[in-house]
């Protein structure tokens, strides 16, 4: 059965309304300040440390993103933590909020499909996240210019921009997850807790669990144990399992994109290093190639979550 009319009619209206809601909401204010303050705190520390090496390091700007100065973690690790928080904060009451305000049936009685409502909410969240990330990015570049006194090279700008895109993909994934749970659970509190729980599990617990599971699935050969070396088979399992967590994928892409010296992600076999100049930087295109599968996985994950949410939403009763 073909549907009449465009699934996108009304998309613009929904997106603009939701975007305005996000940008003016108190929730967004809180999240923004949280992110800006922690990010600036991390940056100030890093800049002091990096400043001493300005002359010798060709990628000093990228160091702003990746260097950590005790006791604060690096700028990117803070973001890796805060981006999901922000995305979940924007999405956890997307659909159940409409249910609970009893506005859903009135909105859906207008000539739009449910597609437009869901897509509009996702896009508005994504645009909000993009705005925040761009502001943060400008903040880093600006502070770097001011305090380091050298302009970033073209490659540094491109690499940090690639970082921006990856961060947005990562944010999109958690936004899609939050919206999915906002469809499944009628109570926003339940949806928020479930999404946060999933995030904590995948970010904190899963990386700790995956070696054990890999060990159980593919126990290392006794020979390797004797030599006190890791078994490559076990390592492959370990890595595969760890990559089920989006935060692992995100970390891997960041390593490739922000650190030109990264030649491979995960365990490296000797033959891969043949002819390689250890420590010499890779060109941007090569770094992107390394990170490509991870980035695609993040985007694919987002699409899968969105589609599952879409299917559930289509079948849901509109009445409160």
């Amino acid at each position, binding site marked *: 059965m073909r549907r*009449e009319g465009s699934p996108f009619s009304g998309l613009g209206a929904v997106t603009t309304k939701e975007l305005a809601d996000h940008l003016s909401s108190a929730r967004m204010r809180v999240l923004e300040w949280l992110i800006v303050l922690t990010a600036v705190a991390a940056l100030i520390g890093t800049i002091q440390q990096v400043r001493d090496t300005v002359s010798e390091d060709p990628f000093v700007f990228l160091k702003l993103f990746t260097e950590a100065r005790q006791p604060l973690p690096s700028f990117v690790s803070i973001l890796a933590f805060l981006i999901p928080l922000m995305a979940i904060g924007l999405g956890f009451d997307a659909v159940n909020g409409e249910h609970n*305000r009893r506005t859903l049936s009135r909105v859906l009685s*207008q000539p*739009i499909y449910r597609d437009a409502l869901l897509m509009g909410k996702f896009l508005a969240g994504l645009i909000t996240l993009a705005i925040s990330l761009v502001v943060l990015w400008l903040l880093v570049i600006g502070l770097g210019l001011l305090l380091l006194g050298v302009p970033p090279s073209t490659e540094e700008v491109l690499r940090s921009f690639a970082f921006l895109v990856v961060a947005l993909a990562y944010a999109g994934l958690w936004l899609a997850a939050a919206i999915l749970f906002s469809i499944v659970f009628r109570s926003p509190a339940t949806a928020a807790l479930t999404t946060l729980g999933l995030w904590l599990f995948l970010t904190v617990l899963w990386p700790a669990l995956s070696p054990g599971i890999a060990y159980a699935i593919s126990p290392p050969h006794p020979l390797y144990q004797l030599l006190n070396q890791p078994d490559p088979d076990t390592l492959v399992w370990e890595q595969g399992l760890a990559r089920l967590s989006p935060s692992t994928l995100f970390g891997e892409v960041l390593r490739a994109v922000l650190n030109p010296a990264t030649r491979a992600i995960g365990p490296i076999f000797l033959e891969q290093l043949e002819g390689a100049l250890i420590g010499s930087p890779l060109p941007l295109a090569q770094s992107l190639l390394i990170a490509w599968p991870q980035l695609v996985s993040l985007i694919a994950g987002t699409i899968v979550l969105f589609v599952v949410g879409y299917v559930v939403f289509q079948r849901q009763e509109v009445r409160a």
Partner: protein
Amino acid sequence: MNAVIEARNLTKRYGDASAVDGISFSVAGGEIFGLLGPNGAGKTTTILMMLGLTDVTDGEVRVLGLDPAREPLKVKGHVGYLPDSVSFYDNMTAAENLAYTARLMGLDRAEREARIKEELERVQLADVANKPVGTFSRGMRQRLGLAEILMKKAEVAILDEPTSGLDPQATEELLGMIRDLKSHNVTVLLSSHLLDRVQKVCDRVALFQAGKIALIGTVSELARQVLGSGFAVEVEAEGAGLAEKLRVIPGVSSVEATGVNRFRMLADRDVRPEAANVVVGAGGKLRQLSVDEPSLDAIYNRFFQKQNGAGEVRDAA
């Protein structure tokens, strides 16, 4: 006139339970049609199926000749819907709320602003147009919902429990606005369990019971069916042998004397003109003549009493 809404054997099942069980009815253009019935009778479910907001299990429904399941956007573009206890975004003003729905309807900016202003005035909300809806009373929200339907220039208005929770005056105002819709040639379908209120505006009604339509027709038709004779005409007149003369008027089933020179006639229609003729013809003096229209409440109660009575007999057998 062509049927604007038509349902044939329309059925909705949730699992094993039927919320709507094979109902058929049709609503003509410009008519005010009432879906009446107790809680859980299936009124809202029927409405949601007409808007394509819930799937039809069996049978079919056509609105303006369109299938809401196949062409929901066209149907929803021509049909205005006021949900049961309508809600708006509380943090947005009345005008902003309408502007959002107007954009969903695809109206351009100039059109939007003109219509919002016009309709807010029509429902007497112009002076609170820029107040957040969170501060609105129930009646104001209901009127705002009606403004939304007016703004759509809908050909069909579907109103679910439009008067529930309103005080008598607000109800009266709202019913006035519903009549106003009819005068603009809008077909209105409304659901309610406040029978005596909606009786005044409905051209025809369908009585729902447990997912089925138990009775359908104009109020006086239903009265004839259920109460036997629906109209009670009170006559106060002086004259000889009036009771016998009144009894022979066609359609009159009984005449009883309720006092000195007072009679109460039961009839299946309004027989006041004939009664007046009879009194004058007999050389009597007519002092007062009044009619009690059949009340839907009475019909409703009597009907379900009968049903329950029949049920008990069946159970006993």
